């Protein structure tokens, strides 16, 4: 049984490394290394965003949480898709037009302040590590289920392949790898699902027991109404603040293309996210144990014989594609920020930074309490929603945002959200209202962050950046117009 699964894992790893190696020949300059020289077509770009975005939390975690907690968890994939609608209308085109590679670049361009830039860099690194840690933990868990090896072995395997790939290829190869990974993940969930639905039909379409409370919304947790709304806020607003998503917008040729790419992304994600809920539903109907590995175990439970074995191998391959793609994207972003803002820059610094970017979350994965992968990723979304969401939204649409306001808002929102995350992961699980407020912090940290940013900006009107009018021209006018957009450029390494 495990032989086919191990073969599948090896195959995915090999394909990732080979496609990455294919891209190496094309990446020569620093600009290639970071953003693929902007020669990526919209469908490739959208597939790459999808491939990068669909992590272990989407592939394994959602189905696991739905199986455990029921209908309220359906909001998780809805928010992870809908976040792109919010990103599309508020951020996509102006962000591309800003010309920024990264979130710290945007902060510097808009607020003309190195202090805001540095604080943004710290937050990018923290969000990136918080997102990477559960990916590695999850890889360890799946690898243990297949081979019986200790959890660190799977983490090490994924961390190693990611580091090698990022070190050798840079962003150019990553774009191809990511696009390939999206379609692999879609296939790896869809094909077993089709077989399982046939099996389910032939079993006489078993449904829920009458009066089964599992399928009802607002049920199963301590404060379901608060937690549902907080989850919605974190996922819808957090998407725009994820470092590995934003860097991809730079690979669009202009703002209009950035919008269209986002539309394609939304479609690709919508197609994918139809499936995890069905896995969760079938898992409940067939009484599977509540765990992140339900997606891996379910096909073998419903379909027997060599076909079932093949399907299990396929979902395993998909899971490893998920570990590799998201981890690679995050590693590139985190390493880019560390290299540019902490080390002195250049391709050599990028290599050192890559090792750091992988090593820290790998160590954390071994040390931290193991929570469901989608829960931890949800916390990363909450931190992004309470820090970068207000910075981006106010920065793009509100001229009176000041340097002091941005700093105070990032510190208050990001700081409180990070504190809640640390308390939840290290000291948790807590019970009662305190537990709910800490486990789903977005509902209070996002308003705090927005309020602090606005109030402090209004109190410090003298610190509105001097070039704000020119920046607004740059952010909002279509590229076809011949106007002066200022001379800010992201720093070339």
């Amino acid at each position, binding site marked *: 049984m495990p032989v086919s699964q191990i073969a599948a894992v090896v195959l995915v790893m090999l394909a990732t490394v080979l496609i990455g190696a294919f891209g190496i020949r094309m990446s020569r300059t620093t600009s290639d290394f970071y953003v693929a020289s902007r020669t990526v077509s919209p469908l490739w770009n959208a597939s790459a965003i999808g491939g990068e975005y669909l992590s272990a939390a989407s592939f394994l975690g959602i189905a696991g949480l739905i199986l455990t907690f029921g*209908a309220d968890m*359906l*909001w998780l*994939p*809805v928010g992870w*898709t*809908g976040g*792109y*609608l*919010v990103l*599309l*209308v*508020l951020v996509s*085109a102006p962000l591309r037009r800003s010309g920024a590679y990264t979130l710290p670049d945007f902060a510097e361009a808009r607020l003309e302040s190195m202090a805001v830039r540095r604080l943004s860099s710290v937050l990018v690194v923290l969000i990136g590590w918080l997102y990477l840690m559960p990916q590695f933990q999850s890889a360890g868990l799946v690898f243990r289920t297949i081979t019986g090896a200790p959890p660190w072995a799977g983490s090490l395997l994924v961390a190693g392949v990611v580091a090698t790939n990022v070190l050798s290829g840079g962003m150019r190869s990553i774009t191809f790898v990511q696009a390939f990974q999206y379609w692999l993940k879609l296939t790896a969930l869809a094909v077993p699902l089709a077989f399982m639905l046939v099996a389910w039909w032939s079993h006489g379409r078993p*449904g*829920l027991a009458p009066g089964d409370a599992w*399928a*009802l*919304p*607002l*049920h199963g947790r301590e404060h379901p*109404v608060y937690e*549902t*709304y907080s989850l*919605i806020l974190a996922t*819808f607003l957090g998407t725009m603040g994820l470092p590995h998503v934003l860097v991809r917008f730079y690979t669009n040729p202009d703002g*209009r293309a950035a*919008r*269209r790419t*986002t*539309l394609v992304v*939304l*479609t690709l994600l*919508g*197609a994918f*996210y*139809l499936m995890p*809920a*069905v896995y969760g*539903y079938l898992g409940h109907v067939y009484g599977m144990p509540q765990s992140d590995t339900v997606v891996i175990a379910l096909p073998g439970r419903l379909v027997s014989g060599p076909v079932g074995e093949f399907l299990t191998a396929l979902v395993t391959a998909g899971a490893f594609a998920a570990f590799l793609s998201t981890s690679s994207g995050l590693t590139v972003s985190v390493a880019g920020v560390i290299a540019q803002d902490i080390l002195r820059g250049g391709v050599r610094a990028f290599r050192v930074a890559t090792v750091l970017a992988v090593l820290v979350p790998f160590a954390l994965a071994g040390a931290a309490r193991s929570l469901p992968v989608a829960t931890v990723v949800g916390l990363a979304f909450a931190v992004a929603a309470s820090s970068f969401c207000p910075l981006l939204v106010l920065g793009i*649409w509100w001229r009176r945002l000041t340097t002091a306001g941005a700093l105070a808002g990032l510190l208050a929102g990001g700081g409180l959200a990070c504190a809640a995350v640390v308390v939840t992961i290290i000291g948790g699980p807590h019970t009662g209202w305190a537990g709910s407020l800490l486990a789903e912090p977005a509902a209070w940290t996002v308003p705090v962050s927005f309020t602090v940013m606005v109030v402090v900006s209004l109190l410090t009107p003298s610190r509105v950046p001097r070039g704000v*009018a*020119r920046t*607004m*021209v740059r952010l*909002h*006018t*279509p590229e*076809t*117009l*011949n*106007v*002066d957009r200022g001379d800010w450029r992201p720093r070339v390494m």
Partner: protein
Amino acid sequence: MTGKPRRAAATGARGQGEGAAPAGKPRRVTVTSPRTAAARRPRHPLTREIDEQTRLGEVYMRSLVRTQFRLALFVCTLLACVVGGLPLLFLLAPELRAAELAGLPLPWVVLAGLIYPALVGGAWLYVRQAERNERDFADLVERR
């Protein structure tokens, strides 16, 4: 950029510069009233007003940002009503939680199915309108 009288002058200058205009060929001169040229276009193109950050340029820029922001706010409000309204609906009308549609629980049909095409449809309409706003702005600024 230039008006017709100036084009005539430019033609003349080029003729001189080449220095090979046959003597017998009469030089072409366009005769127009200065008033028609004045009515034809403003003194500066509007992009220059924006570049120089004059009050007029600012008015145009603010109108663009406001139009796009209103559109974004409209989409976000609509989204908030749908997404924020669903849990409220389930809270206030508990019988909906257990309702069924085509043999499947209603909350599942909405949250695990119908909401996705709705999101894509909303995004498509937004992209269309946002591009239209930008085209209108470009036409306005570049009108000649």
